[in-house]
């Protein structure tokens, strides 16, 4: 029971991070029908931007309040990652609209390779460790020497995720931008005829997705305290799995899928074998895509001729 509770907490934390990345996948897929393969690497880039920002604020500027540091880092990482994603869309994806179907995918794979190797060249291939930023924990219960703990950083991750999701939901449901986005999702040509700037809406979709990935990146950095240039690939694939599991194109689905993947991964590691945890995630991806491609909350895809 106590192990279960502990793993539940850990799984929900991890799942929040996956959910935040998954939203980027699902939004981009919803609006232009493309798997943004480079999204995982955008997440990794944001973690590096967060790392640089934290170092700058703590060692050079000398801010001692860790929450202020985190808040500034979040904003800075969101801004720069959004800009990066905007540039990527502009350079690598926009010229390919109307090209054959696999072209954006191949371009995205190229972008993914480019980003991870760019970070490797710019920052070096070794792990970048940070001292723990928020080390305090709350002991929830203790039995037979086994403590169930809830770390402050886990509370921060879940609170920030929940807050952002609410804000994001408001953005999509209530603002003109969200309306434009949903219109483009339904029928891009009609939306353009009705005076919506489709290109800008798509760009903004990429920027929002990247900003959420940046939040995930900073949270990841704070949670694990270490980041590496190759860290984008596996979380990226897992977040994509989450998006597919929840039903690609569906925002609540992405969050639900993220939480499920996080829980499955932690429980698998705790109760079965930690070596095969990635195999479990990849297997879920394969099984869901084959047997349930519309996911839990998605709409079944209609093939158009």
């Amino acid at each position: 029971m106590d192990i279960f509770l502990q793993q539940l907490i850990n799984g929900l934390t991890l799942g929040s991070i996956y959910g935040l990345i998954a939203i980027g996948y699902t939004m981009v897929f919803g609006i232009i029908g493309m798997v943004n393969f480079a999204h995982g690497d955008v997440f990794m880039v944001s973690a590096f931007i967060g790392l640089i920002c934290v170092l700058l604020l703590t060692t050079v500027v000398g801010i001692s309040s860790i929450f202020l540091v985190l808040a500034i880092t979040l904003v800075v990482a969101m801004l720069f990652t959004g800009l990066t994603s905007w540039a990527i869309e502009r350079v690598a994806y926009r010229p390919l609209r109307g090209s054959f179907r696999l072209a954006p995918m191949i371009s995205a794979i190229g972008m993914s390779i480019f980003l991870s190797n760019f970070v490797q060249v710019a920052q070096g291939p070794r792990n970048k460790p940070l001292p723990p930023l928020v080390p305090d924990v709350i002991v929830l219960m203790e039995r037979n020497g086994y403590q169930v703990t809830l770390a402050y950083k886990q509370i921060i991750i879940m609170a920030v995720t929940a807050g952002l999701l609410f804000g994001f939901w408001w953005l999509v449901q209530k603002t003109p931008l969200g309306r434009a986005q949903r219109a483009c999702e339904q029928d891009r040509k009609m939306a353009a005829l009705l005076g919506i700037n489709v290109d800008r809406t798509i760009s903004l979709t990429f920027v929002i997705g990247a900003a959420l990935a940046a939040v995930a990146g900073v949270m990841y950095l704070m949670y694990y305290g270490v980041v590496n240039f190759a860290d984008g690939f596996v979380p990226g694939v897992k977040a994509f799995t989450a998006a597919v599991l929840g039903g690609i194109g569906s925002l609540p689905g992405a969050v639900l899928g993220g939480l499920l993947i996080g829980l499955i991964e932690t429980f698998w590691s705790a109760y079965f074998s930690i070596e095969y945890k990635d195999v479990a995630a990849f297997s879920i991806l394969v099984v869901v895509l084959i047997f349930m491609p519309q996911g839990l909350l998605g709409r079944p895809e209609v093939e158009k001729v």
Partner: protein
Amino acid sequence: MAAPHASDLWEDDDKAPQVTIPPVAPTPREAALLPALKDAVASGIITGLLLLPLVGFRATESGSGPLTLTYRFGLVAVLAAVVAGLRLVLNLTVWHPDRRRAGKSSSPLAIRLRAGVAPLLKPAFFALALAYPFLAILLSGGLSPSRYWVDLGIYILTYVMLGWGLNIVVGLAGLLDLGYVAFYAVGAYTFALLSTSVPLNAFFDAHVAEGFWASWSFWVCLPVAGILAGLWGVILGFPVLRLRGDYLAIVTLAFGEIIRLVLINWVSLTNGGAGISSIPPVTFFGMSFDRDDTGFAAVFGLSFSPMHRMIFLYFIILGLAALTALATIRLRQMPVGRAWEALREDEIACRSLGINTTLTKLTAFATGAMFGGFAGAFFAVRVRFVSPESFTFMESAVILAIVVLGGMGSQMGVAAAAVLLIGGMEMLRNLTFLKSDFLFGSDFDPALYRMLIFGFAMVAVMVWRPRGLVATRMPTIFFKTRRAVSGSLVKEGHG
């Protein structure tokens, strides 16, 4: 591009409105300068901002202590200025609105020249490949000094073969396979396990003549590796080939990773991350390439040199690559090959014409996988050591980059891309002058930029020439006259 058609308005909405070229008005040069300058400055600023966090600062490890920041703002400024300058030059020249679109009206002489050269290209390439080791020996002056060059040739040809194998799947059938390296791994591990595992060898010794296995092992394992890889292609392909293009890509990626993770974690069979070593070397009709009296050198009366084995390996991979090319050429002229190409262009049309798309895809997948298996067995016998490290997603990506850059479906294009990319990257390693102090400094490692350039090239090719460097493809089946099919002539199909 076909003339606009009324039904275009109602086509599926995943196509963006075509990019419109602004109306060309005769503007004087000065009028174009200002917007060009503005654009250049803007792109320079954006580049600077993009590079600022990760190039401007660097988190440097200082021993075991905490990370420290080092600053490189000068580099950011230089790179931003380079981008702005390039953009300005391009805006004023290539992208200049006044510039007349230079029609590609090649003169009759050029056409005749091309028609004359084109049929000679393939034999010339093959002859060069055949003569390559001897040229290497001749030019480097002796057997031993040519070792590097022959090794490089083997390395490149392995990628040519892998590219041709993947070309069947991606280029001909239009299925994006991101897990091709899994079949390469299956082939390599098949040979590694069959040749080093004691119980398996005992089984073969008991059923076939004693010693048979030891002298023939690579040649026996080669077809076995191909068949097993093909079988895995069928097993993995069967459930997933109903999926649409990009889902298929992701699932193949997942399969590739699953196979690699299983290889790492199934320690009792594969020895895990430590890999399998002491794989027996290749033999020439039972003769080993060592100093023995029964070795290759002694039998043929040559003085012993380890290069004999290298050159033999070179010819093995050349033969395997040629086999792949030949099989592809023949298959393309058979109904199944035509079905592949039709499938790539338009899947729905294929289905309406009664082609069993799943089965057609499966044959492509399995054929490609089989050649991957052959290449894997060759890899195992060349390196004589296999470990999961060699079969990462990056390897798949490199092979895919070769196919994409070469022009999907074009054999010569893929071969050229392999030579260019693998050979070019190897040459990059040798550019020692880049390490001089006034350029990049002595800690500059050009090899690190290999994958960076790969990734960039993939994006660039997709943006500028989505059909690859060799964009023209001759159809294998034609009506009355053979006409070139190029990316700008046909509407891109929705694979």
